[in-house]
């Protein structure tokens, strides 16, 4: 009844071509930057983190709906579920970051630490940092695989106990993710600007990747529809995805303003230096970041109609995804390389990692029925209304 996805040779070839093109460009970029290795490693971090975090946020999307006893999401849940399976591969890139640690993180130069960095060195030292990185990857991979396995079991065994177990796994997942999403953001991103700190940072990064994940779900849905799959998705499902894109873009902007306003208002130099650096050296990108990631989805998706039309959702999703890549760029580059650089290296690396992300998605999406038909709330997904 629901057309099963086939990971055809055609799709495989296209993705492998993408990966190869990305690799070629990336290698070319690397070759051109052998004297700026920090730029190379910063890009490994940027794309490694961005797509891994999107994959984890996709898992979070499903988890949170499981805990909230939601029904509508069952129509789309296999998409974020498959996205989440990228996490172990994304982990490989984060392990690569460990290799290039010294080029990104000033605190890793343990011989030249000033007083402040010495104070943090119990936490920010190469050994502990590496252990934490490995731990995040292993724990996240286990959680994602565990959840996925249970979800797939329900396709052959409609026992209600399996769905209850899903809720149990979801509970464990969310507690671990709640803590590690913040600590990993502190480790991998905030510590680049090692003299700076912000208690909001972990949540800010998480919301940025969550919105990006919603955008990716919408874009993948579009691609699948073009291929002739997921025909059961109706306007109500699109409307709900649109609401998430709209609402969480606003929530992201709220967190952006909260962090900025508080640091701007109190005007404490050791905090403001973060923004001064970005406004002075990355000015265009800095303002573009807020405008694109807030104004665009806000204005495009406010009307009811646009949230229900795939074309508008696509436009908004592309803008949001590019916008949050820039957001991540602004979080990493000022501290890692000091001034904006964009060229073949950036394009190549992004295309390369994106290609791998998509390959893993389609491969995993093919490994399961496109919908969890045995889900007790599955029928609810087809008979509800978004009023207004």
């Amino acid at each position, binding site marked *: 009844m629901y057309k099963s996805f086939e990971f055809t040779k055609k799709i495989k070839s296209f993705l492998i071509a993408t990966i190869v093109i990305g690799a070629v460009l990336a290698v070319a970029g690397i070759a051109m930057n052998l004297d700026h290795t920090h730029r190379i490693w910063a890009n490994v971090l940027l794309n490694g983190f961005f797509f891994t975090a999107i994959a984890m946020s996709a898992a979070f999307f499903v988890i949170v709906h499981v805990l909230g006893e939601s029904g509508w999401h069952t129509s789309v849940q296999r998409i974020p579920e498959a996205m989440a399976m990228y996490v172990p591969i994304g982990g490989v890139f984060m392990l690569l970051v460990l290799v290039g640690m010294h080029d990104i993180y000033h605190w890793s130069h343990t011989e030249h630490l000033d007083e402040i960095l010495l104070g943090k060195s119990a936490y920010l030292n190469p050994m502990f940092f590496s252990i934490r990185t490995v731990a995040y990857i292993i724990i996240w991979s286990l959680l994602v695989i565990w959840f996925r396995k249970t979800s797939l079991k329900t396709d052959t065994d409609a026992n209600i106990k399996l769905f209850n177990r899903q809720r149990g796994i979801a509970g464990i997942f969310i507690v671990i993710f709640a803590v590690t999403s913040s600590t990993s953001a502190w480790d991998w991103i905030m510590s680049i600007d090692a003299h700076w700190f912000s208690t909001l940072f972990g949540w800010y990064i998480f919301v940025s990747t969550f919105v990006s994940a919603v955008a990716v779900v919408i874009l993948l849905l579009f691609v699948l529809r073009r291929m002739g799959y997921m025909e059961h998705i109706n306007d109500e499902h699109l409307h709900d995805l649109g609401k998430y894109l709209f609402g969480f873009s606003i929530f992201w902007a709220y967190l952006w303003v909260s962090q900025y306003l508080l640091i701007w*208002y109190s005007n404490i130099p050791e905090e403001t230096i973060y923004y001064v650096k970005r406004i002075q050296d990355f000015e265009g990108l800095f303002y573009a970041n807020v405008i694109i990631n807030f104004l665009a989805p806000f204005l495009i998706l*406010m009307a009811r109609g646009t949230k229900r039309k795939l074309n508008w959702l696509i436009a908004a999703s592309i803008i949001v995804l590019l916008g949050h890549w820039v957001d991540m760029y602004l979080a990493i580059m000022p501290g890692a390389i000091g001034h904006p650089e964009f060229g073949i290296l950036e394009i190549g690396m992004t295309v390369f990692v994106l290609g791998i992300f998509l390959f893993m998605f389609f491969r995993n999406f093919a490994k399961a029925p496109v919908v969890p038909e045995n889900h007790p709330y599955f029928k609810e997904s087809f008979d509800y*209304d978004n009023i207004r």
Partner: protein
Amino acid sequence: MQEKAFVSGYYLDDKDLVEGIRALQEKDIEIADVRTPFPVHGLDKVLKYRRSRLPRAGFVAGAFGAAIGFGFQAWVFTEAWPLNFGGKPFLSVPSFIPVTFELTVLMAAFALVFGFLISSKLGPGADNVIFDEEVTNDRFQILLEVSNGNSEQLQSELQSAGAEGVKHHDV
């Protein structure tokens, strides 16, 4: 006051109501009003109501609120009463955001609420006729306006459309 008359028929279930409405629509009988104890899903589609313009009114009012909020603060802080606080610029955009946001919401809310009340002619002292006090309890009512004394005919139409009880009302 022009003399008006209505015929009402009631149902005890929302599904029966919708069937009754469809039956009447098939016979091209114009329905004056439908009254229910709670909003019935899909009723506005069946009755072919135009989508409410309230959202647009809310948006315009909100935009107005935002403009007023930001503009007023900007004027106060650059022209009328510039204060040097912490060396911040007079046109301190981040500081203006909270009040601007609140006024946006306030104006939009006013537009929605008063727009709703005015367009529905509801308000303190409104004297809308209640034809059947059980509507707000558990009855779903269809109202047909009597013209040229066709009350008997309308009543029988309602009964064949499945209404439980049919009545004539003079207003």
